[in-house]
């Protein structure tokens, strides 16, 4: 049955992998028609999937199927335990009372789930202000980064000025030195920007300027723009369309997927960043959510900390839910071909 359902290639392998005792055994117990139906049901999920290390035939064998289900069950439970249970513990921990959370052995579900802790935490951590600040920095960084990096990548990719490659090389070179390594001179620069003499401490520009100086974004955008055929642009040029109109009306609409990737990257990066906002936004009215949580965590009780963490996690989980595809595309975009 399996032989006929498969291509000649897999049919050849049946002799080496299929267990000889399996058909003999089933023939004794069940009539051929029932046996055939069972085989087909078993085959349904093993086929129709790209060929991986284990072949569909191996999966369809009696032991192959058993091992497969055992591995699946093990992976599902381990993953849930390792990655979901801590979050469950965080949420339920927040709803436990002060005594219950410190109690040994711990309770799996809070005795009297107390939702007021979330509003307490909101006030204690001043999450309203923190969240508002962080959103403001993230959205501003997003818009500013898009404006700066898209124009730069367009110029490097399509207008190709003199020294364009040298500039691109210098931008990509910054990727080798992570920002944390130069935190001291970068901080000093922010306190007194050379030439302009600006003092950017506690100003959102202290976040926005460095975030826009992102070689990886430029690399992703430029590579995407490179794939847009020059003929389209030349046609526009003949019609006398100015370069900025070409960018806005032709390039940007085609580039929507990569713009999505860069946008999500930037927003998530600003939301997750810790050390830089800790240094340049020390004023408690200007702090980001991460820094604010860190500063206040020592002064409040355990269940209030957990409530604060729950609230802080929600925006990112929502973002992940809605933009999962962009996020995962961005993750593999640079690394696979870079």
């Amino acid at each position, binding site marked *: 049955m399996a032989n006929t359902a498969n291509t000649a290639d897999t049919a050849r392998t049946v002799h080496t992998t299929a267990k000889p005792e399996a058909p003999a055994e089933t023939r004794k117990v069940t009539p051929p028609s029932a046996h055939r139906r069972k085989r087909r049901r078993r085959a349904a999920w093993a086929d129709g999937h790209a*060929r*991986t290390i284990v*072949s569909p035939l191996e999966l369809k064998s009696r032991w192959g199927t058993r091992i497969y289900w055992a591995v699946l069950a093990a992976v*599902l439970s381990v993953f849930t335990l390792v*990655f979901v249970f801590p979050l469950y*513990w965080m949420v339920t921990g927040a709803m436990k009372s002060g005594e219950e959370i410190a109690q040994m052995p*711990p309770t799996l579900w809070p005795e009297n789930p107390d939702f007021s802790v979330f509003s307490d935490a909101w006030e204690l951590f001043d999450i309203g202000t923190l969240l508002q600040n962080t959103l403001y920095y993230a959205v501003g960084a997003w818009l500013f980064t898009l404006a700066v990096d898209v124009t730069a990548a367009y110029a490097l990719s399509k207008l190709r000025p003199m020294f364009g490659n040298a500039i691109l090389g210098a931008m990509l070179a910054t990727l080798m030195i992570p920002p944390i390594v*130069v935190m001291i001179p970068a901080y*000093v620069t922010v306190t007194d920007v050379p030439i302009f003499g600006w003092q950017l401490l506690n100003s959102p520009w202290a976040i926005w300027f460095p975030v826009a100086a992102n070689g990886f974004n430029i690399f992703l955008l430029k590579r995407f723009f490179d794939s847009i055929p020059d003929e389209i642009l030349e046609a526009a040029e003949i019609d006398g369309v100015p370069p900025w109109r070409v960018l806005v009306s032709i390039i940007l609409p085609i580039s929507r997927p990569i713009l999505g990737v860069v946008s999500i990257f930037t927003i998530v990066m600003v939301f997750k960043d810790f050390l830089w906002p800790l240094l340049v936004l020390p004023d408690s009215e200007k702090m980001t959510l991460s820094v604010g949580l860190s500063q206040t965590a020592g002064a409040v009780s355990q269940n209030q900390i957990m409530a604060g963490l729950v609230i802080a996690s929600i925006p990112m989980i929502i973002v992940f839910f809605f933009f999962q595809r962009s*996020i995962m595309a961005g993750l593999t975009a640079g690394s696979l071909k870079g």
Partner: protein
Amino acid sequence: MDTLTLRTKRPARPPRRRPPSKRKRAVRNNITAYGFLCAALFCFALFAWWPMIRQIIMSFQETNLVDEPTWVGLDNFRTVVEDPAFGQAWKNTIAFTFLALICGYVIPFAVAIILNELRHARAYLRFVVYLPVMLPPIVSVLLFKWFYDPGPGLFNYVLDAVGLPTLAWLDSTDTALISLVLVSTWMNMGAGVLIYLAALQNIPGDLYEAAELDGAGIFKRIWNVTVPQTRLILLLMLMLQIVATMQVFIEPYQLTGGGPENATVTVAFLMYQYAFVYGGNYGAGSALGVMLMIVLLAVAAVQLRLTRDEKR
């Protein structure tokens, strides 16, 4: 194409005017291009390139940000090297990198291989493994701080419940570093898993087919097909991982403050301490930063070399 463009644009121009107008066009094109580039050049120059140069300058200076900086030669480097925390910090960073490579490099690859074999619940598993990566690091760190708590912490309760001796976790010099590595792995490994998963999906199925026909078992197929096919990405991730662990900061900052007895002081954390905790020793911090830069450039050079050889 070029002449065609010109002719369509200015049909009346006599042909001898073409060369100067071509140069003019090039000039105009360059002006437009630099107009588009200027914002990025501004950001990069002031907030990416200048700090790197400034790091080197500051490492030879003594400065308190108020008075004119004075040149002090190699004094900063001497201060840094003579600090007893210096050796400890490098040792910790290397140990951290090594442990993180075991936990954060081998395990995600193995997990990705298993995930790629599964035919069910793939979306759920991918979502779940990446969930911690989305959380702000401070959330993961504070959550694990509670789990590590020797009193009402979850980990000691579980150890006790299954009959194992409890640990002091963050409070003991023996376990503090590995505790940090565990948090770090938990909150970062999802990215690695998904990148490997994408690489695994690009391996042509025929190769496994052929290996199977040659009688290769499952482990042989992994070793002789999967690993060679993903070599480039494995190499790249190895380097990225090293660079990432060199900059560990939030874990020691929030969980241990570098203690107990400097057991978790990393180089990045020591830099932070020089500049922002020990009364603004920016020079010493920069000197340490220069050393870290050199190490990272060496790592990058090795990576470029290896990937170039590999692509050839």
